[in-house]
């Protein structure tokens, strides 16, 4: 077990080193641009996964946190003349604050209430930011003049954001808290009977999830330099898309959201030229196929293959040795 753990860390380290080396090999700004978008999506996906994947509390409104994070950066610049980089500090906090009341109210209930409340929150924010024109510029959006335009710089900032998100999520999941979150997902009654305060721990998952989604939003604002409510608070292109991205990569897996984000962005870019705005269709069909044939996503499918291989090799549990119980 420990050996496997060490191998996993080694693998993660190699991936990180490779990611750090990439801009020295791939210098084309277009390719770096794609990789930066992948990192934004991987961050949102990883954050969503902590709540939706591990804790089983599906959110249909993560765009709310993404948009609030982005607007925090944009409005700081627009109204107060501060560098939008301060949004990287403010955005995540505002996103977490926006999440708190929803969690406190909805997590006391079971069933679809949280998912519905989040769906509503995303739409409410979209409408609010569209109509509070004096504060938000409304549908005209917010434009900033970036001081830095080097893609390589943004690549490394994006990579840092993603690595921090992955690391924090990993540490949460592989601790007592992680066990509690998964217990809540698997059976809330059983979790309660083990002394787990379920409402509290659902909030423990929600806050970092909103925080890192807000961080991704603030970074996005700094990078693309223009946002409007229909981009960052978009239901289908952000809130629902992040769910598909995570499902494709592998729900409740460390690398799933990152893999999913990579495929989503790559397909989108590839088919945008040939199919125009129908490019999302290809991704949609692919998600359907993945769900049909690999219900646990790409990472889950690989895991199953690995286990099959591993078990047939060593004859571990699962091999039918007749004797079911021996005491």
């Amino acid at each position, binding site marked *: 077990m420990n050996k496997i753990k060490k191998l996993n860390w080694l693998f993660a380290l190699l991936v990180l080193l490779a990611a750090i080396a990439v801009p020295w090999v791939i210098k084309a700004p277009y390719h770096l641009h794609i990789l930066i978008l992948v990192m934004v999506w991987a961050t949102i996906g990883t954050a969503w996964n902590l709540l939706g994947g591990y804790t089983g509390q599906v959110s249909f409104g993560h765009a709310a946190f993404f948009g609030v994070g982005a607007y925090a950066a944009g409005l700081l610049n627009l109204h107060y003349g501060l560098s939008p980089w301060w949004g990287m500090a403010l955005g995540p906090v505002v996103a977490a604050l926006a999440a708190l009341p929803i969690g406190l109210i909805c997590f006391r209930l079971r069933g679809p209430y949280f998912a519905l409340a989040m769906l509503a929150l995303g739409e409410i924010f979209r409408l609010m930011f569209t109509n509070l024109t004096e504060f938000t510029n409304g549908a005209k959006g917010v434009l900033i003049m970036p001081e830095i335009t080097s893609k390589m710089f943004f690549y490394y900032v994006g990579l840092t954001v993603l690595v921090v998100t992955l690391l924090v999520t990993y540490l949460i999941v*592989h*601790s*007592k808290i992680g*066990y*509690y979150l*998964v*217990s809540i997902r*698997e*059976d809330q*009654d*059983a*979790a*309660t*009977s*083990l*002394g*787990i*305060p*379920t409402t509290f721990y659902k909030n423990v998952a929600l806050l970092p999830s909103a925080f890192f989604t807000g961080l991704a939003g603030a970074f996005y604002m700094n990078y693309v330099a223009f946002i409007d409510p229909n981009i960052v608070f978009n239901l289908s292109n952000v809130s629902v898309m992040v769910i598909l991205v995570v499902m494709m990569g592998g729900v409740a897996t460390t690398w799933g959201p990152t893999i999913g984000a990579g495929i989503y962005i790559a397909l989108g870019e590839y088919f945008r030229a040939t199919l125009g705005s129908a490019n999302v269709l290809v991704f949609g069909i692919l998600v359907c196929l993945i769900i049909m044939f690999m219900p646990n996503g790409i990472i889950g499918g690989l895991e199953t293959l690995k286990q099959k291989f591993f078990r047939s090799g060593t004859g*571990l*549990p*699962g091999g039918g040795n007749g004797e*079911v*119980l*021996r*005491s």
Partner: protein
Amino acid sequence: MVKFFEAKNVVKRFGGLTAVNNLSFTVSQGEIFGIIGPNGSGKTTLFNLISRFFPVTSGEIHFNGQQLENLPAHKICNQGIGRTFQVVKPLRRMTVLGNVMAGAFLHTSSMGKARTKAEEIIDFCGLTQFKDSEAKSLPIAVRKRLEIARALATEPKLLLLDETCAGLNPRESEQAIGLIKRIRDAGVTIIIIEHVMKVMMGISDRILAINFGSQIALGSPQEVARHPEVIKAYLGEDHA
């Protein structure tokens, strides 16, 4: 002296239906206390009241000098009461080890300590060979055992067992009884609900028989088995 466990005039109404009607009983430390009754007589409801999954309509429940009926459900476990579920609720996509560790985390935040504790308990419950299997892949007898192991990991002083032997074949039942006795010998007090009379007669120190939520008999297994009301409830008027 403070009684170890005491239920005083406990009542639970669901609308017009009185599921538990004015039940009072005490359980002393180290005892195996059995609860029997026909289907729908309120046994599981009583467990749900003790573990605070349902609020009581009226009455008091005391444990170890603590009054339970106003605590939130997750605090019951902190007080030292563990429970299993009649319809087993394994954490399906977690391994047996993970299930038991989730219980063990009540008293520690350290992964290492939780794992050691969980491995001890898995061994105690005879689940070692299933340690790394996912809970959803287990046969029913092993799932029932896992329920017990998970509850034991929270180090309860009182364990509520809800139909641990239901659905098991005779050999598996024997093993379950052996485990329950070992748990008692390890110093855990047990309240057990069971339909299999052979099991109840064999292991209970005292038995409470209920029907329609009310007590019909309370005493040693022999007394209860001979009690005319119990025979009436189980076999009908003619046999009493």
